[in-house]
């Protein structure tokens, strides 16, 4: 409520600017003006994306595990959110979004450690840089949190913290720089509007690597417990859906028709994928389930993410259908064919979805599919090539680096897994000393 001197100043500023502009064609100048509408939306989007993790994703995952591990899953998500935020401030943001000078194609620099040099007047486009920083921070929070789904119900809490922090610096920051920070993939014109590569592919692939090293839950595959609370799963999924408006819509970094279209196609893809998943279950098992329906929602959201700034409503319908069909199939493949206990299907839903969308966008951004158009000078073919390169690079980097980080973490924690007794008794009481439901 404190009065700011600049409060009064601001309007004058705008007007002076306006006047000057009347006589100067320097549009760059105009571009450097703060736009309060854009700022209002991106601040809101920041809150929405934080809401995706806290409590959206946390509840989505917590409902899928058995009741003796609920709190451990919530703990993973909240603690990751806290730790990643600090790591992002200290170094993550700087590595991702500043100029890396000689190494700039690969990684950013150190000029923004602790957000050095960013005040209330530092702008990034038409919004304050501190808002851009915070918006990006919420992405850095949710990405490692997505991986929680892979290792629930058996991992040491210390391993979760160490692995997530290392991963943010070594996997997330570089890939973010490549794609959004002016790195080599950005130079190639790769299309990743809101994180098909940066968020979903990195998390999905890394999850598989972690699971391979960690091993399956006791009883997998035939005797693991079913979701303890599908209603909690649905609640979390709904919050993820709503928050995703900020995730994709906010990635336009403005409150305009581009944000509106991103929001529109995001919603349509989510709705379509949900219905497709529902219909598959209905046909295949005779009953459509709530868990299935909302899993389709997440699959649709992950798949549209990289494409959300490039495709139109019709493209969104196509992406929704593809997401439902492919992700449903992949869930089976991972668990049945590959026999990997990616417990909550991070790879099949996020990894596959994000990758699928990364490829599809090259086609569906074309006007003939109602898309918003290919990058200047690109053809569908050339775009496909660039997207494929981006995808492969992301996969390879994520896999190799995560493999190393898992080894390091295992070393530091004396093994990633809790004792078998503790796994059987449940992580809530053995790792955190708490009981989830005391309904007497």
């Amino acid at each position, binding site marked *: 409520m404190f009065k700011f001197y600049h409060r009064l100043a601001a309007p004058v500023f705008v007007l002076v600017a306006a006047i000057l502009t009347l006589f100067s064609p320097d549009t760059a100048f105009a571009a450097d003006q703060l736009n309060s509408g854009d700022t209002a939306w991106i601040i809101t989007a920041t809150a929405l994306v934080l809401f995706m993790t806290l409590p959206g994703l946390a509840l989505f995952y917590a409902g899928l595990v058995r009741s003796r591990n609920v709190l451990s899953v919530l703990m993973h998500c909240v603690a990751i959110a806290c730790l990643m935020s600090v790591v992002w401030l200290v170094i993550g943001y700087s590595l991702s979004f500043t100029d890396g000078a000689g190494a700039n194609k690969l990684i950013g620099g150190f000029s923004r450690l602790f957000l050095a040099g960013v005040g209330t007047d530092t702008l990034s486009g038409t919004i304050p840089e501190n808002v851009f920083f915070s918006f990006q921070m919420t992405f850095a929070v949710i990405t490692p949190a997505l991986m929680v789904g892979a290792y629930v119900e058996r991992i040491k809490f210390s391993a979760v913290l160490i692995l997530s922090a290392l991963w943010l610096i070594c996997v997330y920051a570089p890939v973010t720089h490549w794609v959004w920070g002016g790195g080599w993939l950005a130079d190639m014109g790769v299309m990743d509007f809101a994180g098909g590569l940066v968020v979903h592919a990195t998390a999905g692939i890394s999850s598989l690597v972690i699971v391979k090293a960690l091993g399956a839950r006791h009883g997998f*595959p035939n005797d693991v417990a*079913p979701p303890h609370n599908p209603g909690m799963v649905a609640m979390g999924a709904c919050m993820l859906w709503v928050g995703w408006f900020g995730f994709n819509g906010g990635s336009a970094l403005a409150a305009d028709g581009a944000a509106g279209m991103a929001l529109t196609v995001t919603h349509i893809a989510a709705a379509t994928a949900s219905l497709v998943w529902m219909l598959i*279950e209905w046909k295949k098992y005779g009953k459509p389930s709530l*868990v*299935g329906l909302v*899993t389709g929602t997440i699959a649709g959201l992950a798949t549209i993410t990289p494409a959300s700034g490039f495709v139109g409503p019709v493209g969104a319908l196509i992406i929704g259908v593809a997401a439902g069909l492919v992700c449903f199939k992949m*869930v089976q493949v991972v*668990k049945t064919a590959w026999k990997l206990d990616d417990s909550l299907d991070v790879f099949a839903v996020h990894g596959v979805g994000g990758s699928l969308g990364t490829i599809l966008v090259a086609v569906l951004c074309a006007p003939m599919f109602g898309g918003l158009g290919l990058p200047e000078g690109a053809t569908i073919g050339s775009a496909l090539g660039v997207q494929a390169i981006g995808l492969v690079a992301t996969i390879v980097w994520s896999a190799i680096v995560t493999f190393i980080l898992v080894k390091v973490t295992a070393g530091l924690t004396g093994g990633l897994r809790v004792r078998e007794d503790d796994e059987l008794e449940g992580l809530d009481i053995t790792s955190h000393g708490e009981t989830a439901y005391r309904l007497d």
Partner: protein
Amino acid sequence: MKFVMAVIKPHKLDAVREALGATGVEGMTVSEVKGYGRQRGQTEIYRGAEYQVHFLPKVKIEIAVADDKAAEVVEAIQNSANTGKIGDGKVFVYDLESAVRIRTGEQNNDAL
């Protein structure tokens, strides 16, 4: 006195309660239990993975009755809980040595 313990399907509880009321049973104690038996568990499918749920929800009813009423009570339960489908449950009877009503200290049959 006898102690009658029955395990039935949850949605049959109301029917059984009414049937027992008709036989003049004044009280009973009910609890939620999980049953394992011929009925085998149900398989629930989540994300295409089949989960073998070994234990099915059942309701346990406990009734202390005077010796002479036991047979009638067992029969009432049997008739009212019967759906003819596997998993309907069981009725067990064993001997009850004594009963006390906490509020009044009344003993045995008077306590029921």
